[in-house]
């Protein structure tokens, strides 16, 4: 796709995400008519419908969109960094690395302000990813090695998380819902809390697009072009964890979005790393917004966690990728 087409595509995807978010304003435990929703959206009047739209459904849709965009960019960066098409914050252990210490802080250090959670998540995510990468030789070993390394790191962390939950007793119900990944009851404060991290991740990726583009070459070629791998590899890894650190305290682990969005973006064949990042981010936002609307409307009056929906969508994509032998980044063949 030419840059103009890419721009158009991003616009269309964002529009679709907004449409989904609008649809999300209508559905839920109480269904609103489009007319009512639009009326209270433009002129909030403090009545039930208005509160429903402004304090419950709108921030929630925004949180979903921002979270999706962040996860997608994180997945894009991890896939590029490792030249491994199966990389994603979930598979590489980044998500559980962020989630496990947050659970521990929530349980053992209840006085700690949640404002610190993203930093704790960042540290945990970077640490877990580092372990995974060390095991798989900088992530550039075989795809299997990275995936299995990450999965075992995740299994390890989730065993500990389950144990901590087990000891918490009554609180475990709410923690568990958070662990399933979702946006139920997320408010404006959550959106504001998450936004800086998402923006930092997306903007950082766009700013560093030239460097990131070079990672797609082999290490030799990148070094030959003057890229200091020893400096940029850890930096890009941290950049990849930043949006996850923002999403994890708010929504818990939302699986497979970081895997699927960049692949769909690459299928559209945009020209240039910047466009790929933009397309991934907007697709991620669209996927999670749609998944969130589904999660609210499938089992009214109950809610399903978004994590289930994205896992059920993303799992088959993962299997498809493996089946088709797309074990290298799109465009290359092995």
């Amino acid at each position, binding site marked *: 796709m030419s840059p103009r087409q890419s721009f158009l595509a991003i616009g269309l995807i964002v529009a679709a995400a907004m449409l989904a978010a609008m649809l999300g304003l209508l559905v839920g435990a109480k269904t609103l008519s489009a007319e009512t929703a639009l009326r209270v959206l433009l002129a909030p009047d403090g009545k039930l419908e208005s509160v429903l739209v402004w304090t419950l459904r709108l921030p929630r849709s925004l949180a979903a969109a921002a979270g999706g965009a962040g996860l997608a960019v994180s997945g894009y960066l991890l896939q590029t960094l490792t030249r491994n098409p199966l990389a994603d914050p979930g598979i590489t252990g980044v998500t559980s690395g962020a989630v496990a210490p947050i659970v521990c802080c929530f349980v053992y250090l209840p006085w700690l302000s949640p404002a610190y959670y993203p930093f704790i998540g960042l540290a945990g995510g970077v640490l877990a990813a580092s372990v995974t990468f060390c095991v798989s030789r900088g992530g550039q070993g075989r795809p299997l090695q990275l995936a*299995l390394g990450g999965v*075992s790191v995740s299994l390890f962390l989730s065993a500990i998380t*389950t144990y901590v939950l087990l000891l918490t007793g009554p609180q475990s*119900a709410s923690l*568990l819902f958070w662990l*399933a990944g979702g946006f139920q009851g997320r408010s404006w404060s959550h959106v504001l809390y998450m936004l800086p991290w998402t923006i930092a991740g997306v903007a950082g990726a766009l700013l560093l697009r030239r460097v990131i583009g070079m990672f797609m070459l082999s290490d030799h070629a990148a070094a030959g072009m003057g890229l200091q791998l020893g400096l940029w590899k850890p930096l890009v890894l941290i950049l990849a964890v930043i949006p996850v650190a923002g999403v994890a305290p708010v929504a818990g682990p939302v699986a497979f979005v970081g895997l699927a969005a960049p692949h769909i973006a690459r299928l559209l064949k945009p020209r240039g790393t910047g466009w790929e990042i933009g397309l991934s981010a907007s697709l991620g936002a669209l996927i999670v917004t749609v998944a969130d609307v589904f999660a609210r409307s499938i089992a009214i009056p109950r809610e399903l*966690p978004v994590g289930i929906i994205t896992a059920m969508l993303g799992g088959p994509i993962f*299997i498809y990728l493996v089946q088709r032998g797309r074990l290298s980044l799109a465009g290359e063949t092995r």
Partner: protein
Amino acid sequence: MSAPASTSAGSASLGMAVALGVFAILSLAAAVFLGVADIPVADVAAVLTGGGSAEARLIIFDIRLPRIATGILAGIHFSLAGYLLQTITRNPLADPSLMGVSQGATLSVTIFLLLTVYIFKPGSNTLAELPVAWLPAAGLAGGLLAGGVIYLLAFRLGLSALRITLCGVAVGAVLHAVAIGLIAGWGSARIEIILEWLSGSLYARSWDHALFLLPFTIAGLTMLPVIYRPLMLLQFDAAVARSFGLGYRRQFSIVLIVSCALAASAVGAVGPIVFVGLIVPHLARFLAGRNFRLSLALTIVLGAVVVALGDLIGRLLGHAEEIPIGVVTAVFGVPLLLALLRKTM
């Protein structure tokens, strides 16, 4: 598969067998004699020979022994399942918890628990009041289903170890997400029961659990002589195996079913105890060298010992809030797995 220099048969393996036997007996004895309740050694001995106080008898016969028995059986199930999976997929990293079998069983047990709590016994809040006897069967259904998915993928993917494992990982992740979601959405007051089981625990396991695992153990072990020869050939790739006159697809399926049945029934009884199926076969092969028969036998013995010993460690370390065996095996298993990953690939 990494096979170290082969141990010559005869005296060396006999010595090792004796050493291991002593180790096994010592660990199992430790599991009986040690525990959170401090019972003097003499009293335990008295209980075992038919005497002892009523309280000591209760602790030994109704608490420690049944959980050790359940642990032994579950350990055999997991390690044997891992051994079989590793052999047929020719993948040193195969394990019920990495290939989605455990997660399949977990999901079906979760559904079963939620259904029973909601439909049959709305009031009950403890595991004891639930029809635990049916849990292994429930686990079996889900584990076999996950095994079926692996089977279908395996043949579509031409039995490539890499791809089968990756698909197993994905299937496992999806099933796990669904299970957690169901618990979060519908678990309400029963979350703690399900969590306790989900972390892989031998806590409060009774003779019933051991008794319900036993038929599966016996069935699995009696299948061993039947699948022994095909198993040896399944180590090689399909062409080699076929040249020995093996019905590759059929034998692959049989071994897969046995393996899934073992893992899934154990998950039903004690929850997913991760990494036992991965680590124990490696340990066994390391000790047995190229001796296939010996490594199979060691897998069975060591599986039992590892779980019983791991449970003892969890009981002693956690004290009143004991650490579930699943956490213990994860903590010990992951460093080993990561080391293996570096070494084997």
